[in-house]
């Protein structure tokens, strides 16, 4: 009756099945970021080989600069997504902040007040979303789709075909956008700082873990005494502030703004988050992944141009690569899950 399986029965004290299972789990989670890094490396290597310019200082700098703003937004977005919510309004917020900040700066405000003002507006938008979602408990998607339209409308209303040019802006701001320390431009540095701060907080602080708890099971979180509303509100606040900051950086970077900066970026940001391995269903993923996702998407974009791909093919290829990324990620995860199952028995 008894076969080999019974002979490897694990004594309850320690379970080798569990051990190897865990190391495998870790591997999947690391693999999410890992696979991104590898994909990125390959892409850069190939492109660089074809066209060395791609790896020139200028080339690298451009990619970093292009990524900075998207990554910042992706970081904010992923905090929201981790709580099993969504913020579709980020694109509009960037647009609004970029223009309004430009407006006040052009009208003679100092740099610091202007920047603070911009971030404050972003925060206000985030607060609005957060209050509606967490306290009125209305579906995040509907609310933020609504605020997307409202904020965009307000932005266009204020801008109404006006354009604010670099000449009208304080040089300090522009040098923030294009200047650098030790050859590393400011923008990516700023993004990096926020990414590390938020990432570390989410991983290493009890309140940070609660964001994951909420996304993993809101009901259970409530019963566990997690202040769900406050955390969700915070998530939107963070996303809003970062969107605001992104708006300011946008202005610093591009110097010229009209009403429709970052128009329609919401989907790009979400793509970055998803490619970065943050589960759209909440509870899984990291801001590092999201930022990497942003980097990957931008790099693909630039690489295709550098590889002289027919512009009409670029979008298609980007889409295909996005699908490839998430599919590979998924297949990998399924493989490991299967392994896990077997180990959990014949550890």
């Amino acid at each position, binding site marked *: 009756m008894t076969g080999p399986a019974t002979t490897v029965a694990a004594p309850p004290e320690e379970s080798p099945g569990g051990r190897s299972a865990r190391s495998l789990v870790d591997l999947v989670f690391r693999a999410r970021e890992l696979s991104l890094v590898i994909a990125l490396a390959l892409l850069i290597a190939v492109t660089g080989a074809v066209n060395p310019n791609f790896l020139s200082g200028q080339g690298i700098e451009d990619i970093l600069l292009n990524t900075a703003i998207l990554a910042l937004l992706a970081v904010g977005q992923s905090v929201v997504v981790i709580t099993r919510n969504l913020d579709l309004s980020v694109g509009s917020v960037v647009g609004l902040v970029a223009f309004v900040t430009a407006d006040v700066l052009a009208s003679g405000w100092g740099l610091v007040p202007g920047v603070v003002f911009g971030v404050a507006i972003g925060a206000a938008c985030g607060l609005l979303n957060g209050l*509606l979602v967490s306290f009125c408990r209305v579906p995040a998607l509907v609310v933020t789709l609504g605020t997307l339209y409202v904020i965009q409308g307000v932005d266009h209303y204020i801008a109404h075909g006006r354009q604010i040019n670099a000449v009208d802006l304080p040089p300090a701001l522009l040098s923030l956008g294009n200047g650098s320390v030790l050859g590393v431009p400011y923008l990516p540095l700023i993004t990096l700082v926020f990414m590390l701060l938020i990432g570390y907080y989410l991983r290493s602080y009890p309140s940070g873990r609660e964001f994951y708890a909420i996304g993993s099971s809101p009901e259970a979180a409530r019963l566990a005494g997690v202040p769900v509303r406050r955390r969700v509100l915070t998530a939107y606040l963070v996303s809003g502030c970062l969107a605001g900051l992104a708006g300011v950086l946008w202005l610093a970077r591009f110097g010229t703004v009209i009403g429709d900066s970052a128009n329609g970026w919401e989907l790009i940001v979400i793509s970055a988050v*998803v490619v970065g391995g943050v589960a759209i269903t909440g509870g899984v993923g990291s801001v590092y992944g999201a930022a990497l996702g942003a980097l990957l998407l931008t790099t693909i974009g630039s690489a295709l141009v550098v590889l002289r791909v027919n512009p009409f093919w670029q979008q298609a290829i980007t889409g295909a690569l996005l699908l490839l990324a998430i599919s590979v990620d998924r297949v990998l995860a399924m493989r490991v899950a299967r392994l896990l199952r077997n180990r959990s028995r014949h550890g």
Partner: protein
Amino acid sequence: MGGLSLMGRALRWDVLVASLLVAVFVAGSSTTPGFATTGNLSFALSDLGEIALIALAMTMLVVAAEVDLSVASVLGLSSALVGAMWEGGMAIETIIPLVVLVGAVCGLVNGLLVTRLGLPSLAVTIGTLALYRGLAYVVLGDKAIAQFPPGYVALAVDDVPGTPIPYPIALFILLAVIVGVVLHATGFGRSLYAIGAQEQVAFFAGVRVKRIKLLLFVVSGTVAAFAGVIFTLRYGSARADNGLGIELAVIAAVLLGGVDFDGGKGTLGGVIAGVLLIGLLRNLLMLGDVSTEIQSIVTGLLLIVSVLTPRLVSLIRPALKGTPP
């Protein structure tokens, strides 16, 4: 929250939207000259045609807790294909079925990625949104093809004789009835709601979850492609960027109609009311020389209010206070 209040909410929700619709119509016809004219209404309707059609398929998807963001791109791709083939001298009678077939394939791809790989449809269709739009550009590039056969253009533009109803809308009404029955009265519909609310339970109950989802995506792709044909004929211009970004308009209409994005809740009546409300309100605001900016603000507020009101109502309705929030 208990099922009671949830179902109650959904009910009050689409009733609310429907009554808003009536209000807008009455207000419009009394205050704004030229609004209630058949000419204007029939245009306002045909202007909604594609969105309304796609919303039908989208409703079923969202009820089953999935979503298809690639519809606008499929529409664009089909438009581009129509253009390319037409320019290539093919007969429109062969082009249309071909294009619709391609749409079905696009849907199939979405469906396979979602059901076979178990990827979240939001992620997948964001990807295909880029892919299909890209293919549209690959097909037609920067060209804009025109001069489609007047007979067919008329089918996309003209009203059904003796009515203010354009042919596309007539088609929509027909399909709406069918979808309505399927969703609310058939076993298939029942399984959709079950899948949306608790997929695993549906699976345990012998519902062919994957097959059904696959079917839904194929339908969505097909409808989107057909909408693309209508779009192309209606504007008499085939371009790769046709219908850019209308996926959000469709989603907005569906959500406004009270369909819960988490699946398992919502009625088709609500969605139809939602589509009409957005369309008529926009038309009304335009006639009243309200600028685009204000229009989009209104649309947004509408969305928020439509979900907020029932919530606030249910929060203050003592009968419904269950577990404290």
